[in-house]
C-alpha cells in the first residue's frame, strides 16, 4: 500500500514536471513593417497590431465596437460634456516595474499633446488639460464638448507609457518602448521581426497563454500564406480574398473574417483648385448617375470573392451607425442615363486616379466598364501611393480612389473629410448644414441624439456625393488549427488575451 501510494505520488510529480515545459511561441505574419514603436509618434496600422499586445490603453474596444474598461475601470461625463473623469485600475505595473497611476496617465497624455514629434495632437485637440484628482483618478477638462475623446483614448492616444522610460528616452522612446500591456518588448530588427515576451506581472495575466510573440513583416500575400502553410508562421493577417476559398478548404488552417470599420471610396474634386472645374465636380446629378451606374454587389463577388460588402455610407451596413433609410442602392442604369441626359451630357469625360496595387486596379477597371454604359468615359491614371496621396491633397485630380482604415467613433469616419475646415477634406466640399450637424453630433453624449445628427448629415451627403462610397472590405485572418481563442475584431487588431496554442 505504502509502495503504491509512493509510486502514484511519483507518477503525479513526474507528470506535473513534464506538462508545462513547452513554451508557447506565436509567430504572426504582418503585411508591412511597423514604423516607430512609440505610441505618440506611430502611424502605421501594423504598428497598432503590435501595440495591442504591448501597450494597454485607458479603454479598449469590444468586438461589437463598444468602449470597455482596460486601464480605466469606469468613467463619467459631466452634465455639460466638458469634463471626463476616469477611475484607474490599481495594482498595475509597467514593464520596467514602475507603478501605473494617475501621475503616469497625466504624464503620457501631456507627452502626447506636447512632444514636437507627436502625431496624437489632433486626436487630443479638444483637451484643455488633464489632471490627477487622486492617486487613481484623472480628470480631462475639454475646450468644448467632444464625446469622441473616449474613442481616441481607446487607441494610441490612450496608451499609457512608463513615465520613467519616456523621460529618459524622449523622442527615442521607440527604440525601447515600455508600456503596461500583456507582452513586453524584447528586440526589433528592421524589416525582419519584432519580438515580444510575456510580462509576468501583467494585471490580467491569467488570460495570457502565450510566452513569446514574434511579428514578421511579409509584404507578399502569396508568400505570407506559403509561410503559414509550411509551418513557419502560426497566423497571418490580411489574407488576400482570392485565397479565402483555399484556406477554408485546408483542414490544417482556420479562417476568420469580419467586415471592417473603414471604407473604400471615390473622392470627387468639388472645389480643390482648378481641376475642380470638371463636369462631375460641378454637377451633383452626374455624381449620382456615376454612383447609380455601379453594381456594388458585383464588385464584391468578382474582386473580393464575396468577402466584402457593398456600401454607400462611411459606416458598413452592419454598423449601429448605418442609416437604414438609405439602403445600399442597386444598380439602376436607366436612372443613371436619365440623370446624365438631364445634366445636358451625351458622354462625360472624367479622369480617375487609382493606386497601383492589382486589387484596386482590377476593381476600378470594372467600375470603368460599368459607368461607361451610363455615359462616362473614364480614363484611369494609375499612381503609386505616396504620389496619389499628395496629388489628392493638392487637388491635382478629378476623381480619386482612396480608402480609409476607419475609426471606432463615427466622427472619425466623417468629420475631417466633409466639414469645411476638415483636416483631410481633399474634395473641399463645404456645406454649413453638414458642418453644424456633425459638430452637434460630436458634442452630444447621448447616442440617440448623435445617431439622429449623423442620419441627417448622411442624407445631405448622399444627395451631394462629394465622396462616393463603394463598399467595405473584410479583415481576413488565417491561422493554424492549434491556435484557438482568437476573436476577430472589426478594427483589425489581433488581441492575444485568451489566445492559446496547442
Amino acid at each position: 500500500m505504502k509502495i503504491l501510494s509512493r509510486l502514484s505520488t511519483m507518477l503525479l510529480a513526474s507528470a506535473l514536471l513534464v506538462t508545462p515545459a513547452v513554451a508557447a511561441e506565436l509567430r504572426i505574419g504582418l503585411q508591412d513593417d511597423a514604423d516607430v514603436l512609440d505610441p505618440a509618434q506611430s502611424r502605421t496600422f501594423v504598428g497598432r497590431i503590435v501595440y495591442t499586445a504591448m501597450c494597454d490603453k485607458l479603454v479598449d474596444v469590444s468586438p461589437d465596437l463598444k468602449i470597455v474598461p482596460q486601464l480605466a475601470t469606469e468613467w463619467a461625463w459631466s452634465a455639460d460634456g466638458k469634463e471626463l473623469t476616469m477611475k484607474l485600475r490599481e495594482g498595475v505595473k509597467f514593464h520596467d516595474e514602475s507603478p501605473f497611476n494617475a501621475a503616469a496617465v497625466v504624464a503620457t497624455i501631456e507627452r502626447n499633446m506636447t512632444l514636437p514629434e507627436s502625431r496624437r495632437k489632433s486626436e487630443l485637440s479638444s483637451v484643455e488639460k488633464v489632471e490627477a484628482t487622486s492617486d487613481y483618478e484623472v480628470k480631462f477638462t475639454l475646450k468644448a464638448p467632444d464625446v469622441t475623446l473616449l474613442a481616441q483614448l481607446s487607441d494610441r492616444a490612450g496608451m499609457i507609457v512608463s513615465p520613467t522610460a519616456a523621460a529618459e528616452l524622449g523622442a527615442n522612446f521607440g527604440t525601447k518602448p515600455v508600456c503596461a500591456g500583456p507582452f513586453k518588448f524584447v528586440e526589433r530588427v528592421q524589416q525582419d521581426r519584432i519580438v515580444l515576451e510575456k510580462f509576468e506581472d501583467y494585471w490580467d495575466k491569467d488570460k495570457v497563454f502565450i510566452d513569446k510573440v514574434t511579428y514578421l513583416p511579409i509584404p507578399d500575400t502569396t508568400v505570407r500564406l506559403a509561410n503559414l502553410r509550411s509551418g513557419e508562421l502560426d497566423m497571418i493577417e490580411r489574407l488576400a480574398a482570392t485565397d479565402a476559398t483555399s484556406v477554408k478548404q485546408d483542414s490544417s488552417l482556420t479562417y476568420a473574417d469580419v467586415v471592417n470599420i473603414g471604407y473604400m471610396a471615390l473622392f470627387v474634386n468639388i472645389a480643390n483648385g482648378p481641376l475642380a472645374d470638371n463636369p462631375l465636380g460641378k454637377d451633383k446629378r452626374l455624381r449620382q448617375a456615376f454612383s447609380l451606374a455601379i453594381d456594388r454587389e458585383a464588385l464584391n463577388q468578382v474582386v473580393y470573392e464575396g468577402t466584402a460588402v457593398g456600401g454607400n455610407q462611411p459606416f458598413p451596413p452592419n454598423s449601429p451607425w448605418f442609416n437604414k433609410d438609405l439602403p445600399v442602392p442597386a444598380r439602376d442604369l436607366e436612372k443613371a442615363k436619365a440623370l446624365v441626359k438631364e445634366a445636358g451630357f451625351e458622354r462625360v469625360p472624367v479622369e480617375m486616379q487609382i493606386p497601383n496595387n492589382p486589387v484596386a486596379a482590377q476593381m476600378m477597371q470594372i467600375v470603368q466598364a460599368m459607368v461607361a454604359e451610363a455615359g462616362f468615359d473614364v480614363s484611369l491614371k494609375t499612381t503609386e501611393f505616396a504620389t496619389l496621396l499628395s496629388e489628392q491633397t493638392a487637388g491635382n485630380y478629378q476623381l480619386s480612389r482612396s480608402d480609409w482604415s476607419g475609426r471606432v467613433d463615427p466622427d472619425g469616419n466623417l468629420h475631417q473629410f466633409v466639414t469645411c475646415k476638415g483636416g483631410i477634406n481633399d474634395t473641399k466640399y463645404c456645406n454649413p448644414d453638414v458642418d453644424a450637424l456633425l459638430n452637434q453630433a460630436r458634442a452630444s453624449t447621448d447616442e440617440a441624439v448623435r445617431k439622429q445628427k449623423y442620419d441627417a448629415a448622411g442624407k445631405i451627403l448622399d444627395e451631394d456625393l462629394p465622396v462616393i462610397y463603394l463598399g467595405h472590405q473584410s479583415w481576413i485572418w488565417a491561422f493554424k488549427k492549434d491556435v484557438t481563442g482568437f476573436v476577430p475584431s472589426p478594427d483589425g487588431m489581433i488581441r492575444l488575451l485568451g489566445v492559446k496554442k496547442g
Partner: protein
Amino acid sequence: MHIYIGKRLLVAIPTLLIVSIFVFSLQKLLPGDPILAMAGEERDPQVIEFLREKYRLNDPVVYQYGYWVANVLQGDFGVSLRTNQPVLELIGEKLPVTIQLALMSMIFAFVIGVPMGILAAVRKNTVIDYVANIVALSGLSIPNFWLGIMLILLVSVKLGWLPASGYESVFVDPLRSLETTFMPAFVLGTALAATLMRHTRSAMLGVMKADYIRTARAKGLSERVVILSHTFRNALLPIVTLSALLFGELLAGAVLTEQIFTIPGFGKLIVDAVFNRDYAVVQGVVLCTAVGFILMNLIADVLYVLLNPRMRASL
C-alpha cells in the same frame, strides 16, 4: 601598383559626388511628399510643418544637398524619416545580409555557370552545347519572382525542407542562416550562372583558336591539361572581370528576390525607402552601393593585372 590603386581611388571621389547629386535630384523630381507619406492617415498640419522644418525640407534643394554632404563628410548620414533610426546603423544592419546573399549567389553562379560554359565550348555544336545553351537561356528568361514563388511552393510548402522566407544572421545561427538564404541565393545564382556560362563559353572558344593551344596539342599534352591549364587559365580573364562586376551589382541588393523571400537586405531597404520618400535612407544606400561598385571595379582591374602577366608591364 600602389600608385595605380591610389589614382583609381582619387578618381572615385568625383564619381561618388556625381552619383549623389544625380540621386538627390532624381528623388526631388519624384512627385509625392515624404512628410505626407509619413503622416499617412494622421495629417495634422502643425506636425507636418514641424517635421518639414526638422528635416529642412522647406529649404531650397541646393541647401538641402549642401547640408547632406556636409554631414556625410562628418560621418553623419542622417536618420530615417520613417523609423528615426540612424541611416548608418541601418546600413550596418543590412550590408552583412546583402554581402552574404551576394557571396552565396556567386558561388551558385560559379558552380553552375563555369563548368557548363567549359563543357559547352569543348563540346561545341553537340547535344551538350545545345542543352547548356537552353539551360542558360531559361536561367536568363525566367523571372526571379516567379522562380522564387515556385520554389517556395515546392520546397517549403510541399516538401517542407526549407523555410519559406525570413532571415537569420550567420553569427546567431549559422545553419538556420544557410537554410534561409539557400533558396534566394539559388534564384539569384541561376540568373547569373546563365550570363557566366555564355561568357565562359565564348571566352573558351576564343582562346581555343589561339596558336599556343595548337602548339600545346602538338606537344602531345593531354586534352585535360590543354583545356584546364592552357585554355581555361587564359579564358579566365574576362570571367573574373565579369564576376567582379556582377558581384558589384548584387551589392545593390536584389529587389525582387529580397521582397519575395523577405530577406532584410539592401534591396528591400531601398524599395521601402523610395516608396516612403525616405530621402536620407535612399541617399545613404545609393552612396554605399556606389562605393561597393567602384571597389569591385577596382578589384576586377587589379585581379586582371595579377592574372595576366602581360598587363603588369603597362602599370
